[in-house]
């Protein structure tokens, strides 16, 4: 993976830039010591690292605007950062960049139950949004597995999803308004508690723009009333194909579970060794969760059981109480940890049409043999969002490169069958150079035009999302301007 050469002019002006930043922020909010900036050298994609020129931790929208005005003026690239859990390298710095971290901005500004909304500063973690309202019977629906750590800022940056978005949608479906600071320091209010856009749907392009259009400092989020109850079932099958067919039949039957999760044998084994969730010994396992009143849950589960049994399951296990429900989810929730125990892994995130599930799993198995690296699969089956985990050994020369090649092959496969490169993790630097597999030049050009509108100098997170070659002329324009 390549990054553009840092701007020598910016590097040489470090002292002045730091001094200007320090003049608008409190002393402890500017980090420029080389050892200290190392804490920000990477995000969740730890294979790539680069300490930034400086890191700032503003505590208000006004401070963010002041910092951006300085960076704009100095021609310094800016990398927005929430909690730094991105798996795509979306928050990876360059040596000439200022990282703007919003972690200190984590207040709830207003909870409004009458309109079922909450306004928060975006440094607030995903889980603590729900934490602020659950006692009153509400929750914030998008639930990435990283929800304890990740911030609303990054959720908006990546348009993150979670296990329960089959029913409740992803971030973009739950975002009603933002305070956005443009690269030149202009502060804009977009949306609010009303339900549709008055002009263009700005929220739609901002959500998932990976910090390339502006810095989001506040967000109005939709709150959802907690259901009366939820209950998961676990269904084991003898083959991936059969499990895939079962998923499709459940959806077709008219029940809409809140979640349908899928784990294949390598993943089941790894989690069993790791946390002993008591999963059956089988090729493929589904966790299906439904919600509602007890009667409703019974009725939905009866339909699901009927469908599941048509496919001759190894086991159909219904949670009888909260404890059993937790055990059903235990293995799924520990899957990433379990894989981490086994060594280094790379987590992919392609989406495929649900109907292609069996074919794609078979092809991944073949590719895994071909490249000589194990792949385990755990994913959101209801919406076709796959998470193949490729195991490799970072200490073995060449293994990371082989892993990247295999990853690229799997993602190309996702695109070939009608899917996409990334369902929820974002493009970042990781999938940047594969974008032209999915998009024609005109498709990318149209997207870059939107960036031109918001950030004409291409200073915000400039080396992400678009293949370097494709964005070169625009990024170089910036060099000339500076």
């Amino acid at each position, binding site marked *: 993976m390549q990054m553009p050469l840092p701007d020598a002019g910016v590097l040489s002006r470090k002292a002045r830039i730091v001094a200007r930043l320090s003049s608008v922020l409190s002393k402890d909010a500017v980090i420029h010591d080389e050892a200290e900036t190392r804490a920000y050298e990477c995000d969740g994609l730890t294979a790539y690292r680069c300490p930034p020129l400086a890191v700032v931790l503003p505590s208000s929208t006004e401070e963010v605007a002041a910092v951006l005005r300085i960076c704009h003026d100095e021609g310094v690239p800016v990398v927005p950062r929430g909690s730094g859990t991105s798996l795509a390298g979306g928050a990876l710095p360059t040596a000439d960049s200022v990282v703007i971290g919003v972690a200190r901005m984590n207040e709830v500004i207003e909870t*409004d*139950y*009458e*309109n*079922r909304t909450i306004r928060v500063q975006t440094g607030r973690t995903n889980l603590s949004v729900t934490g602020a309202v659950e006692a009153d019977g509400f929750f914030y629906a998008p639930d990435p597995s990283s929800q304890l750590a990740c911030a609303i800022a990054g959720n908006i940056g*990546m*348009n993150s999803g979670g296990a329960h*978005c*089959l029913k409740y*949608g992803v971030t*973009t*479906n739950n975002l009603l308004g933002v305070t956005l600071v443009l690269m030149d320091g202009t502060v*804009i209010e977009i949306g*609010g*508690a*009303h*339900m*549709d856009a*008055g*002009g*263009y*749907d700005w929220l*739609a*392009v901002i959500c*998932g723009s990976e910090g390339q259009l502006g810095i989001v400092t506040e967000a109005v989020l939709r709150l959802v*009333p907690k259901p*009366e109850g939820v209950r998961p079932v676990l269904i084991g099958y003898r083959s991936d194909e059969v499990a895939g067919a079962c998923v*499709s039949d459940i*959806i*077709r*039957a008219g029940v*809409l579970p809140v979640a349908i999760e899928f784990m294949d044998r390598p993943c089941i084994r790894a989690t069993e060794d790791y946390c002993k969730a008591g999963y059956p010994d089988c090729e493929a396992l589904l966790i299906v969760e439904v919600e509602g*009143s007890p*009667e*409703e849950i019974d*009725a939905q589960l009866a339909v699901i059981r009927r469908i599941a049994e048509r496919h001759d399951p190894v086991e159909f296990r219904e949670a009888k109480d909260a404890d059993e429900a937790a055990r059903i989810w235990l293995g799924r929730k520990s899957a990433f940890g379990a894989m981490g125990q086994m060594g280094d892994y790379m987590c992919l995130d392609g*989406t*495929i*049409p*649900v*109907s292609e599930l069996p074919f794609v799993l078979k092809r991944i198995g073949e590719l895994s043999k071909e490249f000589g690296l194990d792949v385990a699969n755990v994913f*959101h089956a209801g*919406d*076709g*969002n796959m998470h193949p985990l490729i195991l490799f050994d970072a200490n073995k020369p060449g293994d990371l490169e082989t892993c990247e090649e295999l990853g690229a092959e799997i993602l190309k496969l996702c695109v070939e069958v009608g899917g*996409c490169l990334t*369902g*929820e993790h974002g*493009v970042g630097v990781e*999938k940047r150079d594969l974008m032209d597999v999915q998009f024609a030049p*005109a*498709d*990318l*050009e*149209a*997207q870059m*035009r*939107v960036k031109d*509108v*918001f950030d004409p100098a291409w200073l915000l997170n400039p080396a992400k999302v678009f293949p370097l070659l494709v964005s070169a002329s625009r990024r170089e324009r910036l060099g000339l301007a500076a």
Partner: protein
Amino acid sequence: MLRPSNEGELAEAVASASGPLSVRGGGTRGMAGDGDALSVAGLSGITLYEPGALTLVARSGTPVTEIEAALAAENQMLAFEPMDHRPLLGTKGEPTIGGVVAANVSGPRRVQAGAARDVLLGVRFVDGRGTVVKNGGRVMKNVTGYDLARLMCGARGTLGVLTEVSLKVLPRPETQATVVLGGLEIADAASAMAAALASPFSVSGAAWTGGDVFLRIEGMAASVAYREGRVAGLFPKVEARILRGEKSAALWRGIRDAEALAGAPGDVWRISAKASEAPRLVKGLPGGAKVLVDWGGGLIWALVSEGTDLRRTLGAFDGHATLVRGEGHGPRMHPEAAPLAALAKRLRAEFDPRGILNPGVMG
């Protein structure tokens, strides 16, 4: 009138246009700008429908009725319930799916299942240069690149002419019922709707028609029976009636199409606001106004006498007012705050540098 029969011809028509184009699907929504008529009705047909994956892809000129019929055959639906503007506007023609997406037309189930933009998975369009662009795709989760699909949704053809749309569809509920709370004025109605929508009983419609509050519940029969009781039980002091099955369905079709306001003379405004502001806004309407409130208070339809400048009467509020029928004062769409208006202008200049696609429609 230009009536291309495929995407290539459409791209050619836009590229070679020498003046403004009035882009239309069925022309039923009264939203196109002035110029040579460019109809997408020739680009028609469902190109992919996978009930097991809840996805449907159709060319933009496909009639909504064709899509709804195909979905009904598989017990599925467009969950966002697009309104039919014909009764209200007195227009003729066949509403198309492209028009629905271009105008982000969503009905009562908006409060629970989201708007058209929420189920839009991908688009193909022709920009103002005549270039074909695709964005998004046919899968439910997709964050690959910027979301231009949703940007096109509601842009009313000013950034590009849609040629194909891909949508997430949902199972059709087995049955429905409506809890009717009689004789509530707007303040009490708004609190009742807020309480119902905040309950765990999955209320999928909450409207007020100037006296009665209607709360819709949908799903499996046993579950609907249970929840209608629970929802009615939230309001022990109000007498509740229940409408079931087709009676309930017909009522919501009428609310969806703002039928109560159709047929009578006057201007029709559509106000999108914070639900809790509904009482203040409704009380602020000129005397004699006819009102329909949907989305639990978040959507106010008002029929007022011709030429009323409702934006001025209502003053500042969190939301926007669109003039849907009538000539009135100023632009149809609510003017945006200055920094957004500036971005909008730059965006149009990028996608339609000659300013030929439905000029003036979005400001």
